[in-house]
């Protein structure tokens, strides 16, 4: 029972992590929380549904197109909206409010186009369970777990070992200095949005396979946001640790205490943790600039 809960928790945490790293990456570059991020996951899942169920493409291809869709929407948001707001020199909170507006738009569009009905992928993974050491583990959970782990390892490699990652870290450190040293800031930011959007797309499809696809499913973005704050805003490893913690905590609370109090515990954990450690687990202590 314990092991089973733990694995389920980690696999949900993995889905959160795919989204939370996106929040962290964008926060580290632009100092704002991208509220529309959860909607990228929702849209990615809908793209995949359209291609898989309505067009009838093979599932893998449809999923890939869904991921691309999520990435594309994220990229367009940066290109058309966020960049424009940044260029007006408005404070960062305007970016956040713009993102809330975008989030409303996407949710409503999904609602109007696909109606509020719950949809599921026709393609079914084997729902059977495997028994390991007395615990029954869902195949879907395991696949999602492995896939998430591979993607996150790749992401960490990308950030720490490649030229692209170096650019991103330089911009996070000081955007103006990076620009002076020849980093193409806007281009790197756009690529980060592409990357974050595609991660969100993967998360959306995994979540949609586990549960259903519906217009308000972007609300998992809220959980991921909480996770990235727990881990420390702007820190990618922090976001991953925070997500796993949150996923495991949620499953244990639902399993042992009460599923209707699940959200209460996650948010209470958040508040208590921030009071003890004001910048999250891995966050750097930020001081407001004078």
């Amino acid at each position: 029972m314990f092991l089973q809960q733990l694995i389920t928790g980690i696999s949900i945490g993995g889905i959160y992590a795919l989204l939370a790293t996106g929040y962290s990456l964008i926060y580290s570059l632009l100092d704002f929380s991208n509220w529309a991020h959860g909607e990228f996951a929702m849209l990615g899942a809908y793209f995949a549904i359209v291609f898989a169920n309505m067009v009838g493409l093979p599932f893998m291809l449809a999923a890939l197109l869904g991921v691309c869709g999520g990435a594309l929407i994220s990229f367009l948001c940066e290109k058309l909206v966020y960049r424009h707001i940044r260029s007006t020199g408005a404070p960062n909170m305007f970016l956040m409010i713009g993102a809330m507006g975008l989030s409303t738009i996407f949710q409503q569009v999904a609602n109007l186009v696909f109606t509020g009905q719950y949809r599921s992928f026709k393609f079914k993974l084997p729902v059977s369970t495997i028994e390991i050491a007395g615990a029954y583990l869902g195949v879907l959970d395991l696949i999602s777990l492995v896939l998430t782990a591979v993607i996150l390892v790749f992401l960490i490699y990308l950030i720490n070992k490649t030229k692209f990652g170096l650019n991103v870290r330089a911009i996070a450190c000081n955007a103006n200095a990076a620009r002076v040293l020849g980093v193409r800031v806007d281009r790197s930011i756009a690529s980060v949005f592409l990357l974050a959007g595609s991660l969100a797309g993967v998360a959306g499809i995994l979540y949609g396979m586990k549960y259903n696809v519906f217009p308000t499913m972007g609300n998992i973005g809220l959980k991921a946001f909480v996770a990235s704050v727990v881990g420390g805003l702007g820190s990618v490893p922090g976001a991953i640790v925070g997500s796993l913690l949150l996923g495991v905590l949620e499953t244990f609370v639902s399993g042992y205490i009460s599923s209707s109090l699940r959200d209460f515990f996650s948010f209470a954990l958040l508040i208590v943790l921030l009071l003890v450690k004001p910048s999250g687990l891995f966050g750097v202590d930020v001081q407001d600039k004078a």
Partner: protein
Amino acid sequence: MIEVFNSINNAVCGFLHINPYIQGVVVLVCINVIAILGMAVLTGFTRLFSFGNAGFMAIGAYCAAILIVRHNFNFLIAMVIGAALAGFVAFLLGSLTLKLKGDYFLITCLGFGECVRVLLNYFKKFSGGSAGFPGIPNYSSMLFSVICAILAFFIAWRFIHSKYGRNLTSIRENEVAAEAVGINAFRYKRLSFTFSAVYAGWAGALFAGYMMYVVPTNFALNKSIELITTTVIGGLGSLTGSVLGALLVTLLPEVFRSLSNYRMLIYGFAVVLIIMFRPNGLYGYKEFSLKRLINRLKGGKAKTGKEAA
């Protein structure tokens, strides 16, 4: 007491030929105006974002409802207690969380608001759970709501144009400099946070009397987001702008009933476009003044009017 107010209200409405539908719309406008004035004092004048104001509304609404229905309190006293309780909770929460920076403060508010909602859902005996809390008498008549809204605006206006309000503005403009001239930024932030929660509680209590029935989903995160975005649409740092925003956001959907499916979509687009092209909102930093309006209408004198302002 309620009967007295309601019969005066009926007499006035009957005299002015205001039908019940319009009365309902006016009550809703007044409720939103009060909630948004609270938000404007916090966000417009201190640049703090609270995603917890729906939670404070819930506290005000449930407190007033439970006192009236279960303990037979006078509705005026129940409303005051509801608003005061919301303010008190905000004072405690703010004492803990206002030292956090930027988004960290924001997310603790968000967490608080969601906690309130989940707890109201969970403690069925106390709050009626997700089925809601019924049987509240209808005390939010049009007359009473309008009086509340005018009073709320008057108090907020006096507050912002007092020494406290100026201190808040200085914190918004530059916190470090404000601290340097001896303003205790933490205490003033807590003051404005409490102020905004009292207004939210007030609006919540009115809402309970209007709906005669409260459910936790009335006070979900979306309500907080709506409050914030409306404040931004109206203009940060302008009380009259916020009232205008509240009017627009409540009235437009009523006018365009036939477009009700697209209501939230249009709302989202409005927020994005305003943020992109009029980042200070409709009335950023300026208060509505008759003098300027007349000057602008005269056309030729518009420029001088602007310079004078």
